């Protein structure tokens, strides 16, 4: 062969050199293709394989009470998942010894931690799938217990959840957040703009072992945690009230009960308790009715607690005084129907104070009918009826107060004792706050403000104070209400031996379940304030549809208990003065 002919080395050298050059050119082209032509695409694929984009979850802010006690807090819970395809016996170390756990034993151990049966777990890990959820939103303690099992086919997804340390104590006010993180009710919903943070995002590269490549992290956006919402509630007093209401609802077989404690001079709501209430940790099991805050969302005819408003209107209009006299019969007949008192009695010679003491329907009509209906309507509006409070709670009701021109003959009369109009518990409590606060109505406050990380509080806008009645009218009305507690048949059961107390009962007829007329059940209530000489708190109790009692005697035990706890908790000294005499009969 010519090429291999010895003696022709120059040819061979040239050929070899040519081949090398050819290879170099080919490699050069490929290199050029990789480094220049396809570089961008290759880089992109490479980076995609090693880069990770991760959401930096922002924590939702806390909800705290007036003393900073945490009522709602964000924690991590864990979704527990399995890869059924990998389920097999595993070797684990127990007490320093290697032991083999069968699938059955593993399922049994998991079931015990998750509170499920072994059969349920076995059903979930059956098959050859790569994903099966065993449980959602499991607590950190259970997650830790599962991790300690060392089962390689279990994997965990952390989920940001809410926990409510006080459970149903503040459930109806604080509200709750859905599993998807969407606030569904209460302050959680109302103050979402303050509570919700802004998620961040970071991108970094990781090696084949999953370890982050140094200096590769690019934080596109830092997470911003949510701020704290501070409420005006006192969680300890709230609990005492709530526990009392639970006992009373059970005792009276009532539909529900509410209790409010309002600070007279500030309008701050210290207690907004109700029973039954939603446990925010487990809102799924609550009834629709229990998930809402009845204090703000439910309106009903209040009954005789409205007589206080009628009496204050009468005095402030200059049409009567606490000693204006009236003869109150047992019943009054009108073209549209009959009005009668709660108990049979002969005609009684009463003053306006006596009318309130005995809670006489006929007496208040006979005295109050001198007030023009437009005047009464205007005063009721000034007392805050017929419109939402400035709390603007989600789903808050405005109650029903028709224009005076739309009142029929019955509404004109029965509205004097709280029928034919509907109010929310918070509206009626604030009307009594007006009387206790020398005639000036404050807007109720439930939320102190939104507190950022630096501690700066952005206060919530509140309505301006409204002069509703004169200071003199308020004082005279207070004096009459004190006589109700001193001498009233029901009223005296609301008295406290250490403090001077004023208040008024209400026993209202409520709409029948079929929507036609009134049923046989009532809404019983008692609203009052103490100490009379310098009122600190208004306490308003409502028990809706009690079945073992039909008078306000059902509301006064809760009233006394909660009022006394409030006075003690806030260190209000016992009264050292006594009430002045006031004529009640003639």
């Amino acid at each position, binding site marked *: 062969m010519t090429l291999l002919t010895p003696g022709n080395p120059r040819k061979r050298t040239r050929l070899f050199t040519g081949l090398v050059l050819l290879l170099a050119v080919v490699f050069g082209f490929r290199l050029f293709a990789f480094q220049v032509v396809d570089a961008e695409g290759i880089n992109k694929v490479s980076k995609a394989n090693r880069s990770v984009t991760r959401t930096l979850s922002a924590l939702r802010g806390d909800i705290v009470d007036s003393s900073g006690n945490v009522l709602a807090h964000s*924690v991590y819970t864990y979704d527990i998942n399995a890869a059924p395809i990998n389920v097999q016996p595993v070797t684990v170390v127990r007490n320093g010894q290697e032991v083999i756990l069968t699938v059955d034993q593993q399922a049994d151990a998991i079931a015990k931690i998750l509170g499920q049966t072994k059969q349920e777990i076995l059903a979930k890990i059956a098959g050859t799938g790569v994903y099966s959820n065993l449980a959602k939103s499991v607590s950190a303690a259970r997650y830790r217990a599962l991790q300690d099992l060392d089962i390689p086919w279990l994997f965990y997804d952390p989920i940001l959840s809410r*926990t409510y*340390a006080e459970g149903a104590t503040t459930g109806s006010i604080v509200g709750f957040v859905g599993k998807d993180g969407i606030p569904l009710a209460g302050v959680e919903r109302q103050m979402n703009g303050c509570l919700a943070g802004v998620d961040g995002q970071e991108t970094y590269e990781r090696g084949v072992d999953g370890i982050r490549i140094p200096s590769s992290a690019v934080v596109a956006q830092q997470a911003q945690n949510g701020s704290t919402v501070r409420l005006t509630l006192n969680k300890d007093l709230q609990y005492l009230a709530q526990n009392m209401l639970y006992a009373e609802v059970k005792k009276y077989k009532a539909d529900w009960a509410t209790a409010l404690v309002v600070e007279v001079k500030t309008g701050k709501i210290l207690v907004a308790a109700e029973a039954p209430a939603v446990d925010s940790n487990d809102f799924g099991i609550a009834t629709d009715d229990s998930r809402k805050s009845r204090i703000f969302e439910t309106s009903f005819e209040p009954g005789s607690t409205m007589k206080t408003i009628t009496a204050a209107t009468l005095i402030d209009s200059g049409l009567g005084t606490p000693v204006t006299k009236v003869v109150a019969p047992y019943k009054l007949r009108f073209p549209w129907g009959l009005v009668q008192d709660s108990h049979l009695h002969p005609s009684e010679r009463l003053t306006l104070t006596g009318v309130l003491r005995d809670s006489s329907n006929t007496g208040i009509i006979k005295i109050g009918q001198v007030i023009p209906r437009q005047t009464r309507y205007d005063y009721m509006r000034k007392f805050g009826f017929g419109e939402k409070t400035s709390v603007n709670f989600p789903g808050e009701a405005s109650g029903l107060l028709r224009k005076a021109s739309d009142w029929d003959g019955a509404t004109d009369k029965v509205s004097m004792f709280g029928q034919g109009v509907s109010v929310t518990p918070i509206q009626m409590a604030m009307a009594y706050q007006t009387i206790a606060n020398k005639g000036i109505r404050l807007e109720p406050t439930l939320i102190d403000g939104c507190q950022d990380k630096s501690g700066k509080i952005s206060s919530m806008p509140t309505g301006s104070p409204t002069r509703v009645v004169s200071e003199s009218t308020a004082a005279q009305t207070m004096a009459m209400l004190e006589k109700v507690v001193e001498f009233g048949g029901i009223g005296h059961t609301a008295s406290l031996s*250490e403090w001077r107390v004023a208040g008024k009962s209400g026993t209202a007829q409520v709409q029948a379940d079929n929507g036609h007329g009134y049923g046989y059940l009532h809404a019983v209530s008692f609203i009052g304030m103490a100490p009379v000489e310098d009122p600190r708190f208004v306490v308003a109790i409502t028990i809706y549809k009690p079945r073992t009692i039909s008078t306000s005697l059902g509301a006064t035990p809760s009233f006394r208990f909660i009022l006394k706890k409030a006075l*003690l908790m806030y260190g209000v000294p*016992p009264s050292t003065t006594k009430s002045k005499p006031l004529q009640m009969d003639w």
Partner: protein
Amino acid sequence: MSVIRAVAQPFSLPRLVALPRVASPRLRIGITVIIGLVAIQMIQLVLGILTEQGAYQMADLKAQRHVLTTSSDILSAEVGSLASNQNLANSAQSLGMIPNSSPVFLKLSDQSIIGKPMAAYFDSTHQVSRNLVPNAAMTTRSKWSAVALPTKANVATVQPASLQVTLISGKLPVSPTH
């Protein structure tokens, strides 16, 4: 006439002298550059190793932080549960606690006592109510050994006949430090 006469010159061979070895400046620069590059590469290698080590350490620390955060969450839940009013109410009842419903105030301005000091006394209606308010977050409860509830035998059952503090004309004794 001049004569040109050849003069014999002593014959000597040219001497080869070993010149001192002088590196060319280019070579020196080249060597310096190479050494520098090698040094930089070595330093870079060492730093790279250290950084990589740091990355693994950071990953370890993050894992530790996760474990500690989980422990913190577990403990917070336990503390929250034990501190809840529901648990406190149940504990108080288990221990047979009785609230004293006769408040007494000491008025600092005139050192007078407001209210009648009385011992708390026991009957079933005065005992702290057991908890009735639901709380699914109450996963940990205080455990008390069986405590004998107070009875009329070991708790005052009647109002004390007289005030239990020493008073001077209904006022507190004046403190010498007042």
